[in-house]
Structure formats: structure tokens, C-alpha cells
């Protein structure tokens, strides 16, 4: 019931945006909607933790991993909504966007969030596909939000590449329906019924289907070589949208792939999907590792970091064993940290009016809180103590070393190359001589609070996870 409530609040918030032009109302609607989603997600997560699964009729069903991702989405949504309000106000004040634009922004944002909630909770693969497609559609205009040629270009590439990817994914999805004997189907096909009937599938078709799904939805996740849209889109979209993409959409897409993975595994065994995950995971770490060094734009840098983290997660699921648990933890940490980093990149953009790394210097003397948080975020995402990503990475590779030692060692090496690139840019931004014209000013609390709270949350979760979350993670790890 909570789920429908969440989805409808987002819908209502979007409708409010259509109806009224009063900015404050729209802003509050968005914040309230996402706050409600957070509360709802907690209730759902608790239920899943105790009852293993959460069903609303046959159409909606949420399992442990779904609940975790639901929590992530809602937390990121709430912080994004809060951040967006002040961010857009400042942009309007600086005449970067016209006064009436935030209305469009919030409508699309609400739809986007709604689509993600639906993608996670729909129990039918086609409906999930439709929701994922809806995320693409709702965000195209968010990417081109600044109406500049470059934003247009990014949005166009996003649209094209994702359309192709999702159609491939759609074809793969359809192939899974061969599990049902012609004419035997009754009612709505669900993930569970697919899994139950998977044994009827021709193994080779199962393999083909999974390849199509992996490449199709992998486009949405951003596995190399389907990642090409990501730097463009992340770089050109408003910072909070980047946060939503990287922190919320990415896990959603991974979730869908994982759901297909269980089905495939039950037909053709684990090794097949493991090898695919490893191959794409390793590529997704390798390309960002080398790209990182020569990047010039800090938002693109965050995009590549997302690709790399998707790669690490894929490696984790590829290795299996405790790595799966570590990967789930990694998804949580990565989302929270990456959202925080995107918010901070927004602060940088507001202050320095440039997304170029070379134009951002000495920020520790201009926006100290942002800079310190940015450094902390950098440390967290690259795996420095006391943040949990260090542990998840070690756990992932410790599972990997047992079965795929060479891949693990290469992965480790690539991660350090990536670290070098990332670190180089982070240092260049935070330290150095600040531009003469810049003065140290008090930073707006609403631009700081979202990322600060996310970082605090990550820190807390690095030391202690609430019991229900632990149960969820363990259950999810058992299931996938």
C-alpha cells in the first residue's frame, strides 16, 4: 500500500507542477513527495526484512535487494529535491536559467523519481522495461535543461544510445518469454513465474537473451563499451540530475539485470553470467582508469567514476560468494557518496561558473566546507578509511582472488591508476592558488546540508548497519 502511496505522491507532485506556477508550492511539493517516499521506503524495507518479500497485488513486488535500492532512491531523491531548490534559486539569481524553468524541472524530476520507483517495484519485466524507458524519456529534457548546444548534443546522444540499448534489452526480455509454452500463459507474467518456468527455456536462447539484456540494460548502467552517453549526460545535466542518474538510476538498472541473471543462472548455470559480468566489469574499470588522467571536466570525472564503480559492482557479482554481499554494500556506499559528490560539483559550478578543472583552483580558500566535503567524498569513493568502500573493495577482490586471481590483480592495478587520475584532479581543484577575484564567502547551508548528511550517513553505515538493513543485505546476497 505504501508503494502506491509513494508513486501517487510523486505523480501528484508532478501534476501540481503542471497546475500551479507558484514556485514555492512546486518546490515544497517535490520535497514533501520525496520525504514521503523515504518514510514509505523505510516501512517497506522493514516489511521486507521481516517478511522477505513485499507484494501489492500481483503487479508490484519488492524483494530484499529491491528494498535496499528503494531506500537508496528515496534517500537520494530527498536530498536531490532539497538541493535542487536552492541550486535552481541560485542559478535563476545568476540568470543562468529563466525564472519559469524550475517548474519544468520539478515536474520532470518527479516523473523521473516515479519511474524509478515503478521500475524497482513492478513485478513484470515488460512493465519494468516501460518504466526504465520512462526514466529515459523524463530525463531527456533535464539533460538539455540549459538549452545550450552542448547540452542539446548530450541529450541527443543520450536519447539515441539509450533507445538502441533499451530496444536491445527489450528484445532480450521478450526472449525470456520463451520460458512459457505457447498458449500456456495465464495472467501477468512475473519475475517469480519466469523463474519458476525457466527450466522450459532452451539454454542457448537463455544465453542469447541474457546477452541482449546485459548489453541493453548495461547501456543504462553504463558498462563499457555502452557507457559513451554517460560522461556527456552527466556532464551537461544540472548537478542534482547527475546525482539522480549516478546514485539512483544506476542501481535500478543493475537490479533489473540481476533479476534476469537469476533466471539465466537457473537455466545455464552460474559460470556463463559470471564470465560476462567479469568481462564487462573489467572493461568498465579499465577505460575510466585511463580516461581519468586526461579529463578536463570535473562532472565528467564523476561520470567516469560511476562507470568504474559499476564495473567494480559487476566484478563483485561476477566473482560470487562474499563478493556479492560486498557488491550490495558497494552499491549503497557508492550511491550515497556519488550523490554527495554531484551536489558538491554543483557548488563548484555555482562558485566558479565553469566545469573545467583548470578553472577551479584553490577552492579550499573559497568554499572550504564544500572543498573538505569534496575531499572526503573523493576519499570515500576511491576507498580510503574510514569509509566502507575500502572494505567492500577488499572483500570483492578477496572473493575474486580465489577463482580469478589474474582478473583480481589486474582490477586492483586499474583501480590505483584510476585513483591517480582522480586524485590529480581533486588536488588541482581543492588546493593551489585561488583566482584573484574570488573571495571567501559564507556557503549556503542548503547547498551543504544534503551532501553533508549523505556523507555522515555513509560514515555511519561504514561502521554500523541497522539490523533490518543487515537482514536485507544478507537476504539479498543469498538471493542473487
Amino acid at each position, binding site marked *: 500500500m505504501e508503494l502506491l502511496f509513494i508513486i501517487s505522491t510523486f505523480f501528484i507532485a508532478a501534476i501540481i507542477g503542471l497546475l500551479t506556477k507558484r514556485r514555492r508550492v512546486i518546490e515544497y511539493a517535490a520535497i514533501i513527495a520525496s520525504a514521503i517516499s523515504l518514510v514509505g521506503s523505510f516501512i517497506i524495507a522493514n516489511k521486507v526484512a521481516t517478511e522477505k518479500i513485499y507484494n501489492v497485488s500481483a503487479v508490484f513486488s519488492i524483494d530484499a535487494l529491491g528494498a535496499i535500492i528503494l531506500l537508496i532512491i528515496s534517500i537520494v531523491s530527498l536530498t536531490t529535491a532539497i538541493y535542487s531548490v536552492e541550486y535552481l534559486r541560485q542559478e535563476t539569481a545568476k540568470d543562468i536559467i529563466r525564472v519559469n524553468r524550475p517548474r519544468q524541472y520539478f515536474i520532470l524530476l518527479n516523473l523521473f523519481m516515479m519511474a524509478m520507483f515503478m521500475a524497482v517495484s513492478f513485478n513484470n519485466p515488460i512493465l519494468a522495461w516501460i518504466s526504465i524507458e520512462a526514466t529515459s524519456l523524463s530525463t531527456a529534457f533535464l539533460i538539455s535543461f540549459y538549452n545550450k548546444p552542448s547540452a542539446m548534443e548530450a541529450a*541527443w*546522444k543520450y536519447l*539515441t*544510445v539509450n533507445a*538502441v*540499448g533499451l530496444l*536491445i534489452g527489450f528484445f532480450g526480455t521478450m526472449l525470456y518469454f520463451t520460458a512459457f509454452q505457447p498458449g500456456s500463459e495465464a495472467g501477468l507474467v512475473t519475475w517469480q513465474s519466469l523463474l519458476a518456468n525457466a527450466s522450459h527455456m532452451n539454454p*542457448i536462447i537463455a*544465453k*542469447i537473451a541474457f*546477452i541482449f539484456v546485459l*548489453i541493453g540494460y548495461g*547501456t543504462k548502467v553504463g558498462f563499457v*563499451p*555502452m557507457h*559513451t*552517453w554517460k*560522461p556527456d549526460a552527466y556532464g551537461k545535466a544540472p548537478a542534482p540530475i547527475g546525482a539522480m542518474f549516478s546514485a539512483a538510476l544506476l542501481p535500478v538498472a543493475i537490479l533489473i539485470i540481476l533479476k534476469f541473471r537469476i533466471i539465466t543462472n537457473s537455466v545455464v548455470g552460474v559460470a556463463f553470467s559470471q*564470465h*560476462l559480468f567479469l568481462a564487462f566489469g573489467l572493461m568498465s574499470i*579499465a*577505460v575510466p582508469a*585511463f*580516461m581519468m*588522467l*586526461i579529463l578536463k571536466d570535473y562532472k565528467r570525472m564523476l561520470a567516469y567514476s560511476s562507470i568504474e564503480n559499476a564495473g567494480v559492482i559487476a566484478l563483485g557479482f561476477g566473482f560470487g560468494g*562474499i563478493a556479492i554481499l560486498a557488491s550490495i*554494500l558497494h552499491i549503497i556506499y557508492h550511491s550515497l557518496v556519488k550523490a554527495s559528490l554531484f551536489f558538491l560539483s554543483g557548488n563548484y559550478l555555482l562558485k566558479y561558473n565553469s566545469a573545467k578543472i583548470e578553472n577551479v583552483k584553490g577552492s*579550499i580558500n573559497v568554499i572550504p566546507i564544500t572543498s573538505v566535503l569534496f575531499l572526503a567524498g573523493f*576519499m570515500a569513493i576511491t576507498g*580510503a*578509511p*574510514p569509509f*566502507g568502500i575500502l*572494505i567492500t573493495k*577488499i*572483500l570483492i*577482490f*578477496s572473493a575474486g*582472488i*580465489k577463482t580469478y*586471481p589474474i582478473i*583480481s*590483480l589486474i582490477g*586492483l*592495478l586499474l*583501480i*590505483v*591508476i584510476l*585513483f*591517480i587520475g582522480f*586524485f590529480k584532479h581533486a*588536488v588541482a581543484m581543492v*588546493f*593551489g*592558488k585561488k583566482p584573484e577575484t574570488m573571495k571567501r564567502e559564507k556557503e549556503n547551508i542548503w547547498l551543504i546540508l544534503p551532501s553533508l548528511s549523505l556523507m555522515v550517513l555513509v560514515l555511519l553505515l561504514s561502521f*554500523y*548497519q541497522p539490523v533490518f538493513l*543487515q537482514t536485507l*543485505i544478507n537476504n539479498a546476497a543469498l538471493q542473487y
Partner: protein
Amino acid sequence: MTPEIGFASLISLFIVGAIGSLFFRNNDKLANRWQSFFAITGSLTGIFFSISQLISGKILAFAFAIPGFPLLSLSLYIDAISAFFIFIISLIALMCSIYGIDYIKHYYGKYDLGALGFFFNAFIVGIILVVSASNAIFFLIAWETMSFASYFLVIYDHHDKENVKAGFLYLIMTQVGTVFIMGAFLLMYKYTGSFDFRTIQANAGLIPVLAKNLIFVFALTGFGIKAGIIPLHIWLPAAHPAAPSHVSAIMSGVMIKSGIFMMIRVFLDLIQPAPTWWGLTIITIGAISSLLGVLYALTEHDIKRLLAYHSIENIGIILLGVGSALTFSSLNMPGLALISLVAALFHTLNHATFKSLLFLSAGSVINQTHTRNMEEFGGLIKFMPQTALFFLIGSMAISALPPFNGFFSEWLTYQALFQGIAVLSPIGKGIFMLAAGSLAFTGGLALACFVKAFGVTFLARPRSEEVEHAKESSFLMRLGMGTLATLSLLFGIFSGYLITAMENIGKSLAVFKNMPAITEASTGQGLVLKNNFSSVSGFAFFVLFLIVMALVYYVTKHLIYKEQKIVTGTTWDCGCDLGPRMEITATGFSRSIILIFKKILQPSIEHEIEYVTTDNPYTPKSKTVILGINDIHYSYIYQPLQAIIKKSSSYVKKIQSGNVNTYIAYIFIALVVTLFLAL
């Protein structure tokens, strides 16, 4: 007080100190007091804890699994070696914290003292946990805490671009190191199925030879980066000078030893038995590091960089001990191995005392003169007499002059090498001989280097205005330095007792269990090897020296020509006024040695002559000579490596061509290729 509580309070004192000082960010004075108080009490607790552990001889083992993270457990295993290192850490941290109280005052108003306190305390706690951890993941967390905290300390003075650059290099190198360490532990995990050190040790036999060798290479690289072995040292001369001096002292005196500690732990404890070539490799690296370290030190005129290069040299000397220990133990000669290990441990302790002493006194000098360039010092002995004395003691100790402690540990290292020359196979003999040779040359060159360092800094006339305004350091700073100086002497004089104690520490490793004593100690006798090969006594020499010196002084002063008149005049100046520019410079001092070793150091000399008038090339107005050094490690290792990565980056960059057709082609190709590969 049980050891558990002792250790817990030790850690929590530092943690409270770290986190608490963040709350005083707005009040420099309070922040200073807070951090110093907790660092000092924490270090004192550490000293008491470690000494009581050493005396009781018990092992503190403790494990606490963390829910939610499999394989990770907060597991501690503090045997005598760990306790010994905790002792060193606490001792140096104590002195540096005392020194720091006054030293960090010059940051007031300029930098965030709260942040300094946070990272300083976190740094110390990181090192302590590194030597106590007994679970690889927990260890890595501690290791990274140590690395990152020290990184932020290195860039603490971040208004200086050079410091930020130094920090950059430092963190990159440590991260590369961490990856290698991770690789090593992962390999151990692969075969032993555990991250717990004790389990690894118990199951070390399960590791196949190839993997063991790989672990050795990985661990040596990883820990070697932290220890600063050549050619992985490049971060060290950059990072150590950049940090505040009391932090440099800890970094140089203690942090780099964590690499040594882990080498001992892994090679001599966890994955025994080891093949002989490990030890020989370490000895070779140690020999190269010590010799090149001191050579590079000679070329430096930045006083802290000079000291940093000496750290490399001393790490080399310690590694000679570690390597011999490994070699001997692999050949089943535990007695000799124990001597070598004791030599390494003793030199670790000694280097920690005198190197932090040197860094602290250099810090005092820099604090007064506001420059690290030795060419701008001179004559400081008259302005800072006590600091000069402390630096002199440090210099003598590091140059291995008896009766200071440096000599006795080097003596023991020599003995280990000599024994190796006597008993090993021809290849082993050769390597040990070259190692002993490099140790001998290192000793000579270090002496030359410290004549330069002390002479140029403290003696003769001031070379810049800043020097003339220099004042003696405050009491607390002198207290810190003075205690370390006294310890340098005491550790030398009572080296006999210390070595006996350290032998017991060495015996805490399983390899040396149930070993008979190999050295003897009594007050007069000093150090004696059981096989009667050698003996030496610091105490005897010290007493003898004092008596004879007093006698000589008395006789010359009071018995012969009592009514001698002493006139103060000017130095003979050949008839022209002696200016500070006529004194020998640091560069000039070492020029001849640099030219002798020009094959290795690759000096480049540039002459710039400015003429009075441009059309008349016969009357030069001024001439500048720049003596530069071409670092061969950069040009032969790091630059090519960098070029490879850059090149690959530029290839990878082409993937993101900007053309949407290409992007879709990738998807298409990925699809087709995967289909054909997977089916």
C-alpha cells in the same frame, strides 16, 4: 590495569585527541592544548603499556568480529615485536608532541590548528594500529588511515604549491604500495583461506612456492614504498620536508619503519620458511638504498631533504639486518639470524631517536630562519647554541660515531654481515661482502654529509640576515630535543643491556623460539658475540673518553704554560675582507664527491655569467654556477612509466570520439562479439 584496558585507553586517548581538536577549530590555543595533551598522555600510556608488555612477556591477543562485514575483525596481536614498535612510536610521538606544543604556535591564525590536531593524533593511532593489527583487512584500514592522515599533514602548509605537489606524489606512491600490499594479502588469503595473521602463519605451508615468491615481491614492493627503498623512494625526499617538522620527525623516525615492521612480520613470521634469495634480494636492496641514499643526501642543500635522504640510507642499513636475518634463517642458522634481526631492531630504535632529533632541531632552525636552504644558514651555533648541540649529537649518532647509539647498531649489522661472509656459499659471500662494503662507504659518506650539514648550518658566519635574528628555541622544544639527544647517548652507552632485551624481543618470533642467547651483556663488557668474534663497549669508551679528555684538558690548560694569553682576532683573510660569500657553500662542499660519483648522480653544471657591459666579454660582473642533479630513477623508471600510461590514456581517449554513430557501433559490435564468443 590489564593490558587490554591499557591498549584500549591508549587508542582512545588518541582518538579523543583527534576528534576533540576538531571542535576547537576556532580557538588556536585551545586546539593546540587539546591535541598536545592527548598526544602526550596517549604516548605516555603507550610507553607504559609497551614496556609492561615487554617485561611481562605476554602476548595481547584480541579479536572482535564486526557484524555486517565478513572476514573483517578488529583483531589485535601484540607480541614483543609489536610492543617494541609501539614503544618506539610512543617514545618518538611523545617527544614530538612536547616539541610540537611550542612549534605549532607559528601556525596560529594562518592554518586550522584543529585539523592539525585531528590528523596528528589520527596519524599516531594509525601507526600504532598498523603494528598491532592481526587481520589483514583491519591492517589495511589502519595502514590507509596512517597514509591518509600523513598525507594531510604533508600538505598541511597548503599555501605552498611545492607541498601540495609533494603530497600528491606521496599519496600516489602510497596508494600504489597499498595495492601491492593488498595483492600480497589477497594471495595469502587465496591459499590459507583467512585474513587472520595467526591463521595465515599456521597454514603458511599451504601456499605454493610460486605464490609465495609472488607474495614476497608484492609485499616487498608495497612495504618498500612506505619504507622508502631505492628506487621506490621518490616520494620520501619530497614529502618529509613538506610536513611540519614535528610530523616529519614522526614520519621519518617512525612511519617508514612500519614498512620494516611489516617486512619482518610477513617474511620472518607469517610465511616462513623463506627461500634464500629473498634475504639476498633484501640485502641487495638495502645496500643500494644505503649507498645511493647517502649520495643523494650529499647533493642536497635543503636541510630537510638532506635528512630525508638519510632516512633512505638508514632504512637501507636496517634492511641489511632484516635481509641477513632472512638469509640466515632460510639456511637454518637461527643464531646468526637472531643477531641480524636484533641489529635491524636496534637500528630501528636508534634511527628513530636520532633522526627525529635531527628533524626537530632542523625544524627549530627553519622556524627561526624561515628557509630550508642551507646556503642561507651559517653561524647559527652562536644564536642557538643548545639546538646546535642537539644537532651535533644527532649528527654524530647518525654518522655512527661512538659512543652514540648509531654506532652500536651499525656495529651489530656489520657483525651479521661479517658472519655471513665467513659462513655462506660463494654467492652469498659476494652479496654480503658488497653489502658490508656499501655499509662502510655509507658510513664514510654519511660522516662527510653531516660535516657539511652541521658545518654549513651552524658554523662560520651567518650567510643571510635571517640568521642574525634567530633566537634559541623555547624550553619545551629544547626539552623534546634534549631528551632525544640524551637517549641517543644512553642507548649507545647501555647498548649491552638493550641488545639482550632485544634478543628476547626477537625470540618472540616463532622462528627463534628456544634459541640460546647469542650475545652477552654486562655493564663493562658491552656487546659480545657468543662465538667471541667481536666485542665492544660503549660504556667503557664513554668513561675512558671523559677521563682522558679531562686529563688532557687539565694538563694542557693548567700544568703547561699556565699564563698563556688568548687573544681574539679575525680569521686570516689574505688581506681582503672576509664576507659570508667567501665561506664554503653546501654545494661547494660536496662538489668533489658529486663529481667522483658523476656516473650515478649525473650532475649538470650550468654557468651563467653576467658582464658589466654586453659588448665586452672580458669583465664579468657576476657568475652563477648551478649544480643540478639528474635523478636517474625519474629518467629511467618513472618517466617511461608515466609515458606508457599517458600513451594508453590517449589511445583510450579515442573511444569517446563524440560521434554518435560510433557509439552505437560499439553497442552493435559488443552485441555481435559477445554473441559469437559466448555461444
